[in-house]
């Protein structure tokens, strides 16, 4: 749809997109891992959103915008961090193989850390552990546990069935629990003050 009435488009953009800018930025930052890059991604996504504002259904503005932001972030990752996207394909293949082979979807890890230890994890440690997650796990976890979307919205944004959202979220959390619950972080040289 062309923007016959650009004033209307601008007003609609202002009421639909701008209220969710913080969420857009947060997702972009977690996906790119960098604040300045995240701003670029969000700006690009907002331009796309503005051009496509006529196609917005009027139902869930946040999920709609986050879908566009995710797409822009993936484009950015493809250009600048193609390695992390190669990993996505591998991961999906592994996930599908495990899914089709049935059981063992969530095998218990070797250690079962104490809940108290997990609760004490500090911000830097959590951020590092989340940043290490492969992209599909990371985005699912961030959308749920940082940004508070429900499974249905996450399924919409990440374009996978709700069952996949549930299993990715479970795996992401399990990985974090194992990373955080095993005492020292891997990059221990940098630790401390």
């Amino acid at each position, binding site marked *: 749809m062309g923007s016959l009435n650009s004033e209307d488009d601008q007003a609609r953009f202002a*009421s639909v997109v*701008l209220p969710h800018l913080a969420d857009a930025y947060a997702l972009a930052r977690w996906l790119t891992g960098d604040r300045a890059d995240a*701003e670029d991604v969000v700006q690009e996504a907002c331009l796309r959103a503005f051009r496509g504002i006529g196609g917005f259904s009027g139902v869930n503005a946040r999920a709609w915008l986050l879908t566009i932001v995710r797409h822009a972030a993936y484009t950015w990752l493809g250009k600048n961090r193609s390695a992390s996207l190669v990993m996505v394909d591998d991961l999906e293949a592994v996930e599908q193989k495990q899914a089709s082979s049935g059981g063992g979807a*969530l095998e218990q890890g070797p250690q079962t850390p104490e809940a108290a230890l997990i609760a004490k994890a500090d911000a830097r440690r959590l951020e590092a552990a989340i940043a290490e997650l492969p992209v599909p796990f990371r985005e699912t976890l961030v959308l749920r546990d940082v940004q508070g979307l*429900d499974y249905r*919205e996450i399924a919409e944004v990440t374009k996978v069935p709700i069952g*996949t959202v549930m299993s990715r979220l479970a795996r992401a959390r399990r990985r974090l629990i194992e990373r955080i619950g095993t005492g020292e972080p891997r990059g221990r040289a940098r630790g401390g003050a």
Partner: protein
Amino acid sequence: MTPTDPRLLVHAYLDGELDPAHALEIERQLADDPALAAERERVEALRRAIAEQLPREGAPPGLARRIEAAIGLRPVSAPARSSSRPSWRALAASVAVAAFLGSSATWLALSPGPADADRVVANHMRALMATQPVDVGSSDRHTVKPWFNGRIPEAPRVVDLAGAGFPLVGGRIDVVGRAPVATLVYRHRQHLISLSEVPGRTIAAPERQIAGYNIVSWTDDGVAYWAVSDVAAADLDAFAKAFRAAEPER
């Protein structure tokens, strides 16, 4: 994927995403299985740590202004001055007023959809919260269909879609537009699909989603069909296709 794996379901349970029946089942398993209960504690601890340590932060200060400038919402050079062009806040307010008054046809797309769509979604939500989503529970259409006799004027079309991955759960009476209508309930994996059959009504503007629920609607032989569910839109489309293609066994 093994969605019935309690180690997976415990996450959905903590996220408030399970229907009441599965939530009860998980609660039972949590009480019986110390390993599962320990996993629940770890997940809760993790979620708490994330919520406390990684608070949501706002967008960086100049970002909104840069974006407004990029799409021409605001002159690049005069960010603070009250310019001839209203800021997006003022615009948003005027939009809200326009939508409220319903005076501008451009904004009607933002207003709630057709009443029937809202009603079938409300019925579906109510059913999910009830102790039972159905009044008659049976996977046998020869049990479900006769149950509607005498309760509503026309017997609904009931087909067996178990082969297509949508086993029948049962049926219930819903109210749409002040009239009792037949609603069939099918299941797809963990999710329920409500299919309301509303004779003699047309579908004005098909809604695809309300309150996060996907909707597929169509009309066959003067009956408006409304399928509502939280399954993915593609699955609901597949369901609708399977239902419409099934033999009209009567």
